[in-house]
């Protein structure tokens, strides 16, 4: 390869690495609280593991201590649905919920410091209800009251500085912070005097002065209301307050939807007012399946127990043409379907134009409510944020000292050649970090330790090569030949030793778990980078040096 190509390759890789490592703002579609929104997030090059940033790792498994659970695989899928639902309400920035193996769910909640609360929320059994949407315009009738209470709450909370929109979901106790955020600004100047003339009209907007009147718009069906995404955090914080719930007429409740609706470029969240008494609860359901019906498209069929069927028949015959919300853990799942006729033990929900995926999802919701999966905590690891910051700080100090010591020893022993090796080492650090960033690797504490250690080991390739060059010089070879021969002879040893270490690391990655895997990734990235910098980069630097000396090289500082 021509020298200029070599230099070009190294610089191009270095530029790429730097580009990958610069934090920047990226647009990303994020699914939060059931809606996907475009958010601008600050993308950091390497994500910190929970042990470095603080947070909580929970592994849940099916609790079989009170009887075995049939069909474990479906049980885990049901549980996963429920856990996802709840974690979304948690409001943490990047939660992870995933199936691990066949019978375990792993949940990672960065920044959560209260293990007990998290555990309670995750372990609670799922609760499914069918509830009729409100036909009495209860919300509109209560608007003046709601606005007044909202204003009053704002007064109580005071006028501290606005918070930055704490996401609070339904069913989650909200902090007062969210409320101050709501009223710290210029809102609610006048007393809320929503009037009856703001009521039922064909327009979406409900007139009025208070926060509720301003933000809430009438939806497509009775009891359905649209809240623009911009107002969601504020309204959600309010709706979670008992005072607001009590302002509704008796036996009516607020429930949020897990879904969202884009209308003319604005994303709306659906808020429902439902009859508080459920028609039936999940216990009445025995099974639910998605199906493709030739005439009706995608449907979800469900069956009820005999007793549940009797109740449901009575309920449905009283509510024909009404809308029935399917509520899992106080969250309305999808748009409520309309009841076409009396249903006893067998019914079906027509999904219209929605695809099979949506039907599978709804069937899963019904089964999750029908057969709640008892979960137990198999593992909890929780690290405080200060401890994480402390670990990073100490790790960095150790890293800097390690680098300094290696630099000194290489410079003293190999002098000019040692300097070349250090240039290689600098690129090694750059490339390794970029590779880790490219693999979306998560930096854990053992990973950090492995990286520091690898700085010591990374110079091994150069040590091997330099010792070889020295041997060749001893045999009276010219500088140019000695360098060539040195690299050539050192190569098999470098390759064999690195490949075998890489294989060990791969085994670690495959069979290890959690922090150990993070460690293995660091190791693999480090080995790959050190082979490239130790061999290719340092060789190129030598070639560059030889070229500048124009062939008249008698000695080399090594």
């Amino acid at each position: 390869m021509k020298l200029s190509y070599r230099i070009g390759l190294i610089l191009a890789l270095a530029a790429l690495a730097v580009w990958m490592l610069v934090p920047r703002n990226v647009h990303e579609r994020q699914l939060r609280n059931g809606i996907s929104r475009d958010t601008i997030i600050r993308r950091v090059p390497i994500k910190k593991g929970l042990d470095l940033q603080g947070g909580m790792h929970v592994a849940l498994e099916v609790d079989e201590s009170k009887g075995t659970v049939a069909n474990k695989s479906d049980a885990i899928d049901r549980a996963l649905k429920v856990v996802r639902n709840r974690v979304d309400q948690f409001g943490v920035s990047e939660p992870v919920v995933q199936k691990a193996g066949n019978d375990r769910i792993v949940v990672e909640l960065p920044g959560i410091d209260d293990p007990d609360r998290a555990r309670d929320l995750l372990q609670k059994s799922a609760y499914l209800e069918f509830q009729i949407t409100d036909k009495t315009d209860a919300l509109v009738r209560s608007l003046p009251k709601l606005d007044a209470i909202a204003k009053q709450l704002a007064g109580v909370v005071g006028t501290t500085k606005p918070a930055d929109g704490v996401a609070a979901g339904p069913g989650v106790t909200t902090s007062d912070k969210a409320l101050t955020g709501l009223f710290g600004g210029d809102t609610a100047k006048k007393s809320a005097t929503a009037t009856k003339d703001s009521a039922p009209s064909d327009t979406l907007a409900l007139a009025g002065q208070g926060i509720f009147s301003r933000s809430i718009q009438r939806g497509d069906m009775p009891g359905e209301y649209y809240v623009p995404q911009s107002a969601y955090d504020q309204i959600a914080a309010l709706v979670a307050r008992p005072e607001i719930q009590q302002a509704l007429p008796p036996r009516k409740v607020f429930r949020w939807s897990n879904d969202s609706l884009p209308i003319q470029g604005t994303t709306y969240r659906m808020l429902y007012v439902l009859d508080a008494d459920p028609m039936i609860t999940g216990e009445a359901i025995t099974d639910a399946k998605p199906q493709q019906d030739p005439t009706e498209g995608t449907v979800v069929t469900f069956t009820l127990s005999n007793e549940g069927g009797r109740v449901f028949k009575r309920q449905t015959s009283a509510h024909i043409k009404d809308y029935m919300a399917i509520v899992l853990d106080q969250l309305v799942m999808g748009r409520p379907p309309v009841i076409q006729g009396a249903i006893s033990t067998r019914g079906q929900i027509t999904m219209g134009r929605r695809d099979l995926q949506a039907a599978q999802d709804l069937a899963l919701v019904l089964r999750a409510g029908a057969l709640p999966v008892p979960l137990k905590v198999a593992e909890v690891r929780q690290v405080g944020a200060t401890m994480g910051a402390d670990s990073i700080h100490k790790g960095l100090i150790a890293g800097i000292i390690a680098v300094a010591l290696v630099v000194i020893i290489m410079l003293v022993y190999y002098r000019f050649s040692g300097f070349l090796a250090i240039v290689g080492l600098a690129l090694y650090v750059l490339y390794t970090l970029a590779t880790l960033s490219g693999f979306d690797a998560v930096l854990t504490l053992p990973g950090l330790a492995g990286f520091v250690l690898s700085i010591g080991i990374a110079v091994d390739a150069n040590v091997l090569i330099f010792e070889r060059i020295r041997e060749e010089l001893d045999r009276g070879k010219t500088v140019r030949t000695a360098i060539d021969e040195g690299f050539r002879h050192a190569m098999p040893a470098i390759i064999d030793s690195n490949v075998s270490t890489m294989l060990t690391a791969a085994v670690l990655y495959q069979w290890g778990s959690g922090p150990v895997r993070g460690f293995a990734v660091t190791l693999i990235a480090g080995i790959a980078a050190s082979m490239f910098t130790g061999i290719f980069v340092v060789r190129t630097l030598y070639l560059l040096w030889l070229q500048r000396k124009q062939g008249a090289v008698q000695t080399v500082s090594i």
Partner: protein
Amino acid sequence: MLRIFHDTRYDFIRWWKTAVVITAVFVIAGLGSLAIKGINYSIDFTGGTLIQLQFKQPPNVADIRAAVEGSGVKNPEVQQFGSDREFTVRAQDLRDVSAQGSGAESVATQIKNALTRQFGDSAFTVKRTEAVGPRVGSELRRGAAIALGISFLVTLVYLAIRFEWRFGVAAVIATAHDVLTTLAFLKLMHLEVSLTVIAAILTVLGYSLNDTIIIFDRVREDLKKKRNEPLYDTLNRAINETLPRSVMTHATTFLATLALLLFAGEVIRPFAWVMVFGIVTGTFSSIYVAGPVLLWIERKWPRHASTASLPSAAADRQRQARETRGRAAPAAASVTPTKR
């Protein structure tokens, strides 16, 4: 140029018997203790609960223990962790582990509440909680054993392909030796076998293997030159020729490890200790385990009658070899050429 250990001619292999005795005594002492008391697994593997606490004022350790025991947690282990204000409390006894079944948090909460009663609410903060159920623990233990077994197998196959089976066997036996000595070291240092320590052990294996391969690579190269000399001499020469490299690499690695040991904090310290020991045992085994084993295999299954010999008969054989060299000496063993 500055040079250390340049052009040395130490007869390393000559001391193999002494080396075997030293390492055997160490391993037997460590493993004997292991056999009696068992491996000191961390809660990663046994299941259990660990809480790391930071107190505002240095507390009395006995008070912590008494408070935790008073709450019904059996045999809690209270340990100072770094400064005199930081402590870890662990509950590992089987009753607690089985109690995990109904919610692994319960023991942690129990301990926390007991300490709050004893010291007050604001006297300490919980910095870290780990609670592992028994099943997760046993799975991890199996996973670690599998990882180790497979890494041996993979090494064996790779070296068999790149060198020859006898090199693979010698390298794997040297590596297995490192596992044993490291376990003995852990026992003697009263270190716990945690997931992080397993990672450190596997790093040690990789490092030791590296070292063995560097020496074997020299042997492979020297054998190709078809010098008429016993493998004993080839091995010694290879060790001497790679000595400057060994010293340099061990030095840089050791310094990085030392930085970790001294500055990276308490959580990573067991990892650093294992690495410190690993550098020593890895270097030792590359010379005194891999070498003699290779010679032993050579004698047991010789490629040529007089090419290998154990040091016991070494002097004689060497002399013999030198005498016969001038005459119709059998060609020195040649390693099957490998793909380059």
